[in-house]
């Protein structure tokens, strides 16, 4: 148990360190929210003179913007400890409200995508390992390598073009049809599901290949192990060998990757969510970086840090349960 406490304390320290680091890093980016907003006002013609633009931009900035950086950090940490993540500069909405609203959408599509890509990838990898040396394997591995190399936002653009423009069979934007009242109705649920198909497909089509190639490599090694040969000699069913002997042993490294991926579920993909105008957290990442929206960026990185580091901790703990060979000394 001591080991778990130590790991938990280490995780807390890691989160604190990450929060402080990101606080400084985002301020090292060239530009700042005020410069950005001044130019927005001037370019759009909404401010007629530079003085007007400056005056209006000033009203948006947090009151402590001119304080020393260390004081701003202390204010931020104090706010976080009180559950106050500040207000977004670009929408003047409380950051916590943005996160609470957008996070479920991202987790919804990311978790489905992760489950599908992991399941499909694992099954495909096992099949490929079992069919090693065949033409099917060669062709599949080549195809998987190509799919795995395509970034998810490129896949999203391809799907957007093919399935919403050339063959318009799926919705092209949003989390649901805005004409349908929000509620637990069949119509609304169907709308949510159909709107999630393309973002999910963008992730699955580019992610499953990684899982498949990973488990194929592991399973190919295990297939050469003596205990597999013995199992075959004992005349066990092929399916039992594939699942119980090969599958179970080759899935351990995959499992670590899976748990770590769960942490990243909460970050979403800025580009995929932007392409499909999906109301998730990734879209806010993209806009917050563009507008140098410091409070929003800090809040989003805080969520991401907590989830990734927590996922690491959970992976460490669970690994000892899944693989009895792993021992942790107190």
């Amino acid at each position, binding site marked *: 148990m001591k080991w778990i406490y130590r790991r938990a304390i280490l995780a807390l320290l890691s989160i604190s360190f990450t929060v402080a680091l990101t606080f400084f890093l985002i301020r090292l*980016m*060239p*530009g*700042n929210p005020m*410069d*950005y*907003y*001044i*130019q*927005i006002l*001037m*370019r*759009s*013609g*909404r*401010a*007629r*003179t*530079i*003085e*007007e633009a400056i*005056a*209006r*931009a*000033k*009203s*948006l900035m947090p*009151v402590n913007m001119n304080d020393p950086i260390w004081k701003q950090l202390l204010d931020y940490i104090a706010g976080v400890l009180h559950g106050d993540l500040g*207000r*977004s*500069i*670009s*929408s*003047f*909405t409380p950051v916590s*409200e943005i996160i609470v*609203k957008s996070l479920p959408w991202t987790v919804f599509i990311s978790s489905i995508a992760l489950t599908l890509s992991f399941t499909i990838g694992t099954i495909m990898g096992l099949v490929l390992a079992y069919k090693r040396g065949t033409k099917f394997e060669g062709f599949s591995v080549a195809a998987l390598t190509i799919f795995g190399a395509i970034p998810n936002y490129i896949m999203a*653009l391809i799907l*957007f*073009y093919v399935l*919403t*423009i050339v063959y*318009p069979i799926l919705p*092209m*934007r*949003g989390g649901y049809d*805005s004409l349908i009242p929000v509620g637990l109705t069949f119509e609304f649920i169907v709308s949510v599901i159909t709107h999630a198909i393309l973002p999910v497909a963008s992730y699955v089509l580019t992610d499953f290949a990684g899982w498949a190639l990973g488990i194929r490599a592991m399973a190919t090694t295990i297939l050469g192990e003596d205990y597999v040969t013995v199992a075959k000699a004992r005349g066990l069913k092929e399916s039992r060998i594939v699942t119980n002997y090969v599958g179970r042993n080759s899935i351990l490294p995959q499992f670590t990757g899976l748990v770590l991926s769960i942490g990243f579920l909460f970050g979403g993909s800025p580009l995929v969510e*932007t*392409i499909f*105008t999906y*109301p998730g957290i990734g*879209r806010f990442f993209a*806009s917050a*970086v*563009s*507008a*140098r929206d410091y409070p929003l960026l800090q809040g989003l990185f805080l969520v991401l840090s907590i989830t990734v580091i927590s996922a690491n901790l959970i992976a460490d703990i669970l690994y000892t349960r899944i693989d009895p060979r792993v021992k942790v000394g107190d």
Partner: protein
Amino acid sequence: MKDGTMKDGLRNKLVVAFVVTALAGALFLNLPFTQAATKSPVIFVYSMEANFQPEGHFNNYAETGYIGHAAVSMIDQLAPHVLGTTNFYPELATNWNFVGDWLVVKLRTGVTWHDGVPFNATDVWSTFILHKIRGYSEWGSNIIDDVQVVNASAVKFHVTGLHDLALNWLLSAYVNGPYHVYKTYVDAFIAHPDTADAISVDLNSFTPRSVAQGAIGTGPFMLSNMTESDLWLKKFTNFYAADTIVIDYIHGIKEPSNEVGWGYFFSNTADWGEPFAPVPVATVLNATGTKVFLAKQTRHDFVVFNFKNPLLAQKTFRQAFAYALNRTELVLSANYPVFHASQDIIPYSEFYIKNWLNTTFLNSLNKYEYDPDTAKSLFESIGLRYNDQGQLCYTNGSVVTLYVKFPAPWTDVALMMANVATQLNRVGVTVIPLALDWATVDHAMNIGDFDLVWYTAGGDHPYQQGFDATNGYGFPTYGQFPKVITWQGSNFNLTKFFVDWGKATSVAAETPYVAKLAQIYNDYLFALPFSDTDTMFYGSGRFIYPPSYDTAWMCNEYARGIIVAQLLMPGKFQLNMTYWTVPTEAPAQTPIETYIAIGLAVVVAILLAYIFLVRKK
């Protein structure tokens, strides 16, 4: 008997299955006709680049979350300025005239806010008080120093100078500060004018009430719903000219990028918008299912020189730069039809000033036609020289190197700025293009961290640019003019020039100033205009648009106000009735589906007759 029963049961099931299938088939095949017979609400889908306010709330004076575009149809102006002319189109103001230094504006009567509260002069007054709190230009630039309510349907502004510009700014203002909504802030400012900054900050987080209850504006459309990506406006039935509005709803959809925005049009999802298509020009102009409109020369693009760089501070170097640049090649490099090479190197060359200045005068200005030899000799005339590799060098032998910064996300601009580098390299000037994200470019512009930077500006009153140039002095993007320049052999005080201009109260009195400004720009080249740029709109086939661009429809905001004008002007924006209602003429031939449907219906009828009549016997 048992076999017979089973056979009967099976037969009955088959008959029932057949009947159900036949009925369903008949209904399905008739569905298109059923749909065509139903008149849907007319929804106009407007694809827009915009930031949306927090879901469910709308505050006209939240500095963030400006939504523009379609949303401007929620609010009215007093009288929008018709760009390129000296005319105004009456909206909330029906009449205006100067009485001495007071501009008296008479207001339309019978107008109500979207929440039903009658509109009156106090609302105009409170709007301008809110402008004052925010530091809007008409106050900060000393265009006005007072606004008063005359009576319920008239206000007056005390204009301190520049009557023409005052008209432009005051009449074009959106009236969006209803007193009954913003009373707390307006009253607080009247009581304590020194607390304007604090009130201004508070205004951002004010959410008057829910969208459904809120007084948003007096315009033809009222806010119905708003999410992070969707804006819904519905027709305001109490609008003073509601009978001219042919649309029931406007659905504003957020356009996340050009690539995606173009998809909205290519798939016929959007009815209106202005995405820059990531495809060749011919594809844009010939795209199926879309109509393309060019609003002519709504802005111009230019390269700004940073005067902090001693080389760029020299007029001769800037002029050499202008000769070295083939503007036609430059605009063609973007491969997009909205850019046109600037002909007269003056601000807003094709758009505004030409309404003030005659052709003879314009022809007297230097055209800076592409002439690389002149460029080279001008470079050498200021002591620069070429090394063995043909690179332009300082006298100490170091190579002249300039950095041009521009926003990478705007790919057409990136292509053009890369071309600037290519062309300047041809005459030996080493120009390095730096494609950066918007915030970085904006920061560089604000602090003057550039040699050359791309910029764009929309058409407006010529005084305004001069005003920015002098009052924004020291601000790198806008105020590159020193206050006193050497021009035509003597010192020329620009501050005095604009102060004098400010006293002019008629177009005739202002014209000499406009001419002089054009000459100064043309000679001094604080920035180099290279493109008189159009705005390209896309429209779907679901509506009938004006046959051609007409400046009269370009009310403001870089032509985006066109949509408001079109919605308001009878006969300018109509429904394509073949889409929205049952065709007025019967189809020439009965579609085959109808015969099939009738055939199926007959079969069903015979089967039903057999089942209920023949078999019973």
